[in-house]
């Protein structure tokens, strides 16, 4: 459910320009710059200053919400976004963030309601389509989810901003549905879109394992392991490679990956 890099991508690409001059705008601009420089406390001080000057400045309220979410303060984020929506009910970005924070908090009915509104207000916004799809998938509406994933891919392509994670999100659902060729096609597109990412190779390895082609699964799994960039942890790749090597009767290699898995497990033992 948690979705690290896609979240960052979505938030990064969804910045709203506050075009008009207003009393709090200068402070907001400063806050926004600091936010992008990861100077979060200073950004929070500047955004508070902007809101003191102009309590209903929507970009400042949405930025405040993003800062709160970065600090895991979802209650504070929610309050800021409710103020932003009250100030401008047509702000698709405030609606999107409102839905996004519900999604992050696993509150799916509320996430769906807010993301639907964001999607209606800006139907050509890929993240709204993507997150609405994710929320639908979480409540079992797989057909609706797939439709929205496809739409998000189209929109990203049209905008020239195709993201690996959008392709792989759709691919993973295809895998669950047993549509292995569709899943593989999307993973291959993702590998082309970002050759440095390990994630498409991991997903391809999963597909090949499902299709009883362990040699191809091994090739993709090993390729994933060689790449550093991406969200898939080594542990997951090692686990997959254990299964792939065992299916290929290469027990020594399987054991090598099992040992690597256990080593990582010992290091990162969860509570």
């Amino acid at each position: 459910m948690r979705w690290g890099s896609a979240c960052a991508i979505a938030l990064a690409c969804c910045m709203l320009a506050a075009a008009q001059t207003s009393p709090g705008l200068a402070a907001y601009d400063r806050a926004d710059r600091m936010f992008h420089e990861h100077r979060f406390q200073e950004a929070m001080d500047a955004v508070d200053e902007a809101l003191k000057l102009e309590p209903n400045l929507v970009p400042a309220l949405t930025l405040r919400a993003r800062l709160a979410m970065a600090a895991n303060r979802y209650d504070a984020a929610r309050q800021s976004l409710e103020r932003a929506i009250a100030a401008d009910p047509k702000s698709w970005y405030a609606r999107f963030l409102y839905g996004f924070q519900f999604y992050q908090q696993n509150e799916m009915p509320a996430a769906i309601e807010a993301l639907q509104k964001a999607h209606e207000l800006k139907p050509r916004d890929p993240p709204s389509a993507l997150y609405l799809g994710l929320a639908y998938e979480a409540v079992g509406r797989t057909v609706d989810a797939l439709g929205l994933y496809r739409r998000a891919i189209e929109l990203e392509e049209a905008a020239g901003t195709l993201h690996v994670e959008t392709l792989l999100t759709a691919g993973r659902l295809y895998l669950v549905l047993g549509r292995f060729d569709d899943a593989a096609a999307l993973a291959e597109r993702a590998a082309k879109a970002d050759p440095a990412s390990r994630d498409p190779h991991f997903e391809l390895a999963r597909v090949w394992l499902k299709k009883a082609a362990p040699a191809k699964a091994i090739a993709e799994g090993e390729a994933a392991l060689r790449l550093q960039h991406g969200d898939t942890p080594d542990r997951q790749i090692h686990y997959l490679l254990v299964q792939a090597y065992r299916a290929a009767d290469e027990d020594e290699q399987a054991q090598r990956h099992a040992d690597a898995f256990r080593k990582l497990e010992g290091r990162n033992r969860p509570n």
Partner: protein
Amino acid sequence: MKLIVAGVLLMGLASTAPSQIRFEEIAKKAGLHFQLHNSAAGEFHQIELMPGGVAALDFDNDGCIDLYFTNGASIPSLRKMGPEFYNRLYRNRCDGTFEDVTERAGVGGEGYSMAVAAADFDNDGRVDIFVAGVNRNILYRNLGGGRFADVTAQAGLTGVDPQHGKMWSISAGWFDFDNDGWLDLFVSNYVAWDPKAEPRCGNADTRFYCHPNAYQGVPNQLFRNNHDGTFTDVSRQAGIAAHIGKGMGVAFADYDGDGFEDVFVANDSVRSFLFRNRGNGAFDEVGVESGVALREDGKPIAGMGVDFRDFDNDGRPDLVVSGMVNDGFLLFRNLGKHGLFEDFAQRSGLLLATRPLTGWSLGMFDFDNDGWRDLFCAVSHFPSFEAYLGKPAAQPNRVFRNVTGGRFEDVSLAAGPDFQLPALYHGAAFADFDNDGRVDVVVTTLDGPVKLFRNITAGTNHWLAVRLHGTRSNRQGLGAVVELMLPDGRRLTGHATTSVGYASSSEPLVRFGLGTSRAVDRIVVHWPGGRTQEVRDVPVDKVVDIEERP
């Protein structure tokens, strides 16, 4: 002529058409008034979420399966402050009704109980009861005459670990790991929990139960039977204690066919364990190597109930594990090659069908006796999560029909009006309570009344159940593998175990649906330790008693 051919074809189709699995709920009618109390009072103690173990056992050897229910206690004292918290024993009167014999039997218990495991640990021919709990484990020895004695302390089964103290025990099971003819005890422990140090999750107005990540994991325990009414904690030398998890359901089967039963432990939100029995008193944890530690994508699920049973009739025990909403249940097919399993949940349709479910106890039994083991799962979401899911926590259970070992089909909606009854279902035990040849299910509900789902599936399919009587092996023959050879060449396999699902204990009989087969050519029993015994000319639609040849 055409009409005759069409008629014959239609008759043929009718005879092979599947029977719709159906249940009616009869707990009240049967005199089962047990009510589970978890003492939830808005403090969100983790233990409140977890109780509900139930056992199906024949404690008085009258051939009718009785019931034992575990129950909660007051919080934070963790004491059974009144009779409403007693664990309860109900005797099956063999007439469709039960009577509460708790006080007479002396099995009301103490502490916050979670789970029960029933088996004859002292080989005296009477089934004993082990209760696992948060602060107290109890071993009741069946004295006969409807009475039990608490022998926990002298047996050495208080569960107090030298390093961890008394851990929160959540499931338990009996099996003979060293094939010495005496049942040993495996106890699955959940997390380190202290009512005085309960973490708070959520905020002031929307508090909820914490994720298991908020608690430290603990090891499981293995107790070897000393043949004299006492047990030795061998968790460390056996290699069990070295593995820290968040244990939930536990199940046993000889998955690699080496003659020694292995152990699977479903863990909550961390990877599951498969302990391969080396046959020398030690176990290797091989979950990763065997492909059953995690979901196919390498992520853990909130594992709950588990059954270790052959669903595809290839003679090898497979694994099914329930999980939480959006996990999807795990179904692992035993490939019979180098101890490897294949994640079969997606291919069988179970992954997609179970992603919306939070599953607790479960069991693979042939509810329509068509020769393929189906899947029943007790279902409910966590009580504090309704707002998050947009669904009530109370849900109806689910039953999935096994379509010739390749696919599981959700047939719940057609399983009768009583089956649509939503509740906070948790524990479940499986047995034929009315001896009609159809497997029934008793299901506990969190802070609510018990439900008894009587199997009323129509149809003319035949069945056979094998009740084992060990002489050199343990008295109930737990761990024995039973093979049935049918006249049409089919071979069906099962093994004797009471450890099924979550926190619960089912009847020890090995049951088979035979479909349209009216005969069984022979039964082969592989007793623990490797001795084989064959029985021919076996009647069907009966419970067959097989005593181990000395």
